[in-house]
């Protein structure tokens, strides 16, 4: 039952059918209910934000989408079918890439190698071919390097290509993490607080990159963000969570006018 009816955004972009749908998701950690009976969908081509105060369960929701947590109840539908229980690496191979709230780059590797790991799901050469650096392994290494270089150009990190990631400042690390996720050419990109801890200038850069990714590659993006201004500018539709419950869902304007949301979040934080 795939919903193919899309909608037109305020700035005139055509949004497609449902790509991913969370149906009545509940997540418990022992006695703690982190998420309680939440449903929402993510449509092809849209930028979908999940907002809410700290501890609302946003990261947990993203972890369910990427297969890291298994919901206690409810179903995850992907591309029109219920998704069976999957390991995170299998979810990644279905085209879901992500960044992390606390940067999780591979510190012992260069920027280039980190971004190359994003191509892992596209590389299939066998052990022997890799050991000999011959045939498929060599061809894949070159072809995927080209994709990676495009991403590196796109995110303007050419000059730190060969720098070990450990030496980079925080803002650049966030960008490299985005590069690694983008390199996978995902159909769904999950960003967990991509702008947390950044200064105004870095936030502007990051916002621009997110919009450009969505615009140029048509990538569907689900992002968690605290900064309300940023969320309102970036996203097409917003899910608002509070204490594990969904208290709002709609366009930024709709959400802004929702009294529950104002009480629970906007009124308090801003």
């Amino acid at each position, binding site marked *: 039952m795939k919903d193919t009816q899309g909608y037109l955004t305020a700035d005139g972009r055509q949004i497609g059918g449902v790509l991913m749908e969370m149906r009545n998701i509940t997540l418990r950690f022992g006695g703690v209910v982190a998420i309680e009976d939440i449903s929402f969908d993510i449509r092809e081509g849209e930028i979908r934000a999940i907002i809410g105060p700290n501890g609302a369960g946003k990261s947990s929701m993203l972890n369910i989408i990427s297969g890291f947590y298994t919901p206690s109840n409810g179903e995850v539908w992907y591309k029109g079918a219920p998704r069976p229980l999957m390991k995170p*690496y299998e979810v*990644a191979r279905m085209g879901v890439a992500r960044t992390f709230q606390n940067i*999780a780059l*591979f510190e012992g*590797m260069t920027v280039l190698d980190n971004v190359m*790991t994003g191509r892992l799901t596209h590389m299939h050469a066998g052990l022997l071919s890799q050991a*000999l650096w011959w045939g498929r392994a060599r061809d894949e*290494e070159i072809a995927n*390097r*080209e994709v990676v270089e495009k991403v590196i150009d796109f995110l303007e990190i050419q000059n730190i290509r060969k720098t070990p990631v450990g030496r980079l400042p925080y803002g650049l690390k966030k960008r490299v993490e985005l590069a690694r996720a983008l390199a996978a050419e995902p159909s769904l990109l999950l960003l967990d607080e991509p702008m947390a801890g950044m200064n105004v200038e870095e936030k502007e850069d990051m916002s621009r990159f997110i919009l450009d990714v969505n615009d140029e590659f048509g990538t569907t993006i689900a992002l968690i963000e605290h900064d309300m201004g940023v969320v309102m500018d970036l996203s097409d539709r917003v899910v608002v969570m509070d204490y594990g419950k969904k208290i709002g869902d709609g366009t930024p304007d709709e959400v802004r006018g929702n009294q529950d949301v104002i009480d629970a979040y906007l009124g308090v934080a801003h």
Partner: protein
Amino acid sequence: MFYRTAGQFKTSYESDQALFPVRQDAILLAVILVFAWVIFPLTASEFTFQTLLIPILIYALAAMGLNILTGYAGQLSLGTAAFMGVGAYACYKMVTLMPWLNPVVAILLSGVFSAGVGVAFGIPSLRIKGFYLAIATLAAQFFLVWLFEKWAWLYNYNASGAIQVPNLTMFGVYVAGPQADSWVQYYLVLAIVSVMTVLCINLTRGNLGRTWKATRDVDIAAELIGINLMKSKLTAFMVSSYVVGVAGALFVFMWRGAAEPNLFDIPLSFRILFIAIIGGLGSILGNYLGAILIVGLPVVLGTLPAALGIPISSSMVEHINVMMVGGLIVFFLIIEPHGLAQLWRLIREKLIIWPFPH
């Protein structure tokens, strides 16, 4: 001045991915190869072959195997010597059961057995990490050495309980056993170790290498970007144990000539771990540097004072050696966890910008 990278621009990703993007590295390697293939074998004495050249190469290979597992894939192992033992015993059984088998083929096949055993003992790594995994590999160490002792079939029921390398020939030349010449064995070891080094370099710089390093650095993130951790860890155990097993076969067949089970006990495992640590975890070159230091140090200590006319007893040499190695381990663990290879990298960086520091 010697290291000038200016003017050496890369025009394709292929050339950027070349083994030696900087020309001076290739020249340096060529010089080393000329020494290894021509000058050393022409000039080395029997003593040099047996105490330096051959063991350095074999230890470097064993450390390289361990380094793939520990330095690249982040899985600490304390059972290296036992896996060398598997390679050595497998080789011994093969050449005695099938005397017609080409010795080099037998040595290369030995690794297949150690790879299998390595994967079996690597399975706990799917559930446990770090210190606990190290203890699990220690269990493998004890179990295998016990097996080498108790399973008489392995040593063909010799009364001594030891394995004795028989005379083996290749194209009419003795390559192993009491009749073999050192220079012949040196060349064979050099050839095998060189080829294995190239294969290891390729594996570690490509997709599998990145998979291993990702597993090592942040395993959760690795899994979330699409890495099957089980496959990543088990291939690391497999490749590592293969290399270690071949090193074990070389150790006995090309160098020691005979082996008792306790040769493959913990002290050897630690010796190889020290080579990998001092040389540099996560480096291929480092294994050579570490092996040169660990194998060469006692030789230098044993000959230099005598040459300088300083009277020093052999037990004193042993004590000094142990103290220095201990000191080096502490130094590298605290000051430079990436070992000698990192020191070389820093020197090289300095040389590239020298004499203009900016």
